[in-house]
């Protein structure tokens, strides 16, 4: 019979090898798919990479797409460490963007030095509160956070839609549902050709790494994430840890929303997130919640998206090919986890002597 046992002997090298193999298998599988549909998979993959990195402009676009992914992934990884399945990043980004937009639209004349930090602050509070609500109920009554946070996403989306089509509609747009553009003061400045968000992203990655690995609260999160009871026996205030951590998680996602609204879109609209809240779940998972790995995985994912856009225009291959690729890679990596965590052996069944 087949016996499965947990293994602790899987070396880092072996693990990376297994995961890389998984990615390769995914690429090969999708190639068959591409071939059946009449395209040459090699040229498709090469074009995707060309589209993502081939020129200075394209590289910039890839990086621009990776910024919200990195920041949101950092936020989500914080929650996931607590085994709090924060599916609500999408909504937290939106509420953050909404908070920032509220400030930008109501105080457009404030100088940027004051306006931008104020927007960021409001965004972080809004996103934090949005995460806090499900966290409170989880702490208090163990309410299932997976579904709760998911529902919060839709409420946030519908609320922004309501604002865009109603109270915040731009009267100058003559009836077309659009929120007015932010004033110039509310726009994040560029640093080396890309909006300042990338600097914030790097800072967050470093801070997150230090926080988790070298501070007391970071340690507490690890313990409670492993087992709430262990945390309680050790005298930790588990409820407080859950609530504060998820607030932080939500506020980081909210900051991502402010950066997108201010640095990229210069306004607020229902399309503000472009699905980053969900993609970031995947990237933080693939990064094993480790802050230094997150930028690498996020840039890779962003390159798939940018590459997908490129081949769509250049070769009429639908954008959806990039989604299929992402899905396939993730399926294989998820499956490969099993082989890293468990050892399969065939054991002869011992038949007792008669």
């Amino acid at each position, binding site marked *: 019979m087949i016996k499965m046992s947990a293994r602790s002997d899987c070396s880092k090298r072996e693990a990376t090898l297994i995961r890389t193999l998984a990615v390769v298998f995914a690429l090969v599988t999708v190639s068959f798919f591409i071939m059946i549909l009449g395209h040459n998979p090699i040229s498709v993959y090469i074009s995707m990479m060309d589209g993502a990195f081939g020129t200075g402009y394209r590289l910039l676009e890839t990086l621009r797409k990776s910024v919200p992914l990195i920041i949101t992934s950092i936020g989500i990884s914080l929650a996931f460490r607590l085994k709090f399945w924060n599916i609500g990043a999408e909504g937290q980004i939106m509420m953050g963007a909404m908070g920032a937009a509220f400030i930008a639209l109501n105080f457009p004349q404030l100088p940027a030095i004051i306006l931008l930090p104020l927007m960021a602050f409001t965004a972080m509070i809004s996103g934090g509160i949005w995460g806090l609500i499900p966290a409170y109920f989880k702490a208090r009554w163990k309410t299932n956070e997976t579904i*709760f946070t998911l529902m919060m996403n839709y409420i946030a989306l519908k609320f922004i*839609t309501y604002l865009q089509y109603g109270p915040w509609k731009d009267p100058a747009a003559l009836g077309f549902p659009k929120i007015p553009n932010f004033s110039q003061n509310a726009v994040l400045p560029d640093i080396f050709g890309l909006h300042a968000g990338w600097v914030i992203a790097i800072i967050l990655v470093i801070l997150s790494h230090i926080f988790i690995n070298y501070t007391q609260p970071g340690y507490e999160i690890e313990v409670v994430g492993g087992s709430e009871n262990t945390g309680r026996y050790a005298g930790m205030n588990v409820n407080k840890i859950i609530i504060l951590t998820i607030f932080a998680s939500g506020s980081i996602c909210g900051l991502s929303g402010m950066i997108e609204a201010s640095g990229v879109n210069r306004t607020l609209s229902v399309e503000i997130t472009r699905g980053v809240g969900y*993609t970031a779940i995947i990237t933080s998972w693939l990064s094993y919640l480790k802050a230094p790995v997150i930028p690498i995985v996020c840039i890779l994912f962003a390159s798939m998206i940018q590459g997908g856009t490129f081949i769509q225009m250049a070769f009429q291959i639908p954008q959806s090919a990039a989604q299929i690729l992402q899905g396939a890679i993730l399926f294989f990596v998820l499956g490969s986890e099993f082989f890293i965590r468990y050892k399969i052996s065939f054991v002869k069944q011992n038949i007792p002597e008669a």
Partner: protein
Amino acid sequence: MDASFFTAAVVAGTPLLYAILGEVITEKAGNLNLGVEGMMLIGAVVGFKVALITQNPWLSLGGAMIAGGIAALIYALLTVSLRANQVVTGLTLTIFGTGFSSFMGKNLMGEVVPDNIKLAFADFPLPLLSHIPVLGQVFFNQGILVYGGYIATILAGLYLYNTQIGLNLRAVGENTAAADAAGIKVSLYKYIHIIIGGVLCGLAGAYLSLVYIPSWQENVTAGRGWIAVALVIFCKWNPYRVLVGAFLFGGLDIIGFRLQKYSFYISQYLIDMLPYLVTIIILIVVSARKSISGLPPANLGDSYFREER
């Protein structure tokens, strides 16, 4: 507002009905499959494609259901045998399904469902039942897939609450370790019921692409898969309640156009929030009261390891 609104509500609610039933069955087995939207989209595109190729209504449905089942099989393989995280796997399935459906659908743009298929799924009144005043017009003058929805609901209810297998299934979701110790083949139950869930979601998708909007559209589900996941909770994992939930929210989905006639104005977007708000309230109330009837299956979302029992 007359009976025609309710008739339309039943039609709008039918895809939700199948999807919610599918996810209820999956979750009763202890697995949370967030890939409903993806499975519906896969069913929608495969169903439509088969319809164009074969011009046969039943083959089209069959194709959609098989496709949904295969998508669910991928999820089952990953979460049951390979012990992958259910939430992430489900989300991946949705991303994959959305991409797959969009990709396959590129060449289907602008195509219309063949006439004979439209005819097969068209409304027809049930003898006797359709003559009941008001209710007859609303519930019993519909297409065959709507009637199928009623039957599926009743079958699911009987299965879960009145059969031994159904009891075993509930045990698997409530207390996997005990079910295993009692000799129930946990993995087999999970596989089969996850696949059944996928089959129903595929059917829901096919309803959308073949009947509801009989020409191909990108993103034909428009988020209905997520509403279905929410409504599983609203319906407290009980198939009979799914009828109520599906038709109620089908109605809320379309009420905006009917209300435009009247002078008071509730933004359609605020109405759109209702399924999600209501689900949250139910979630909170149930967990606060810890009442048994409304709780999810206790082992929902857990991967089962016999070795760690």
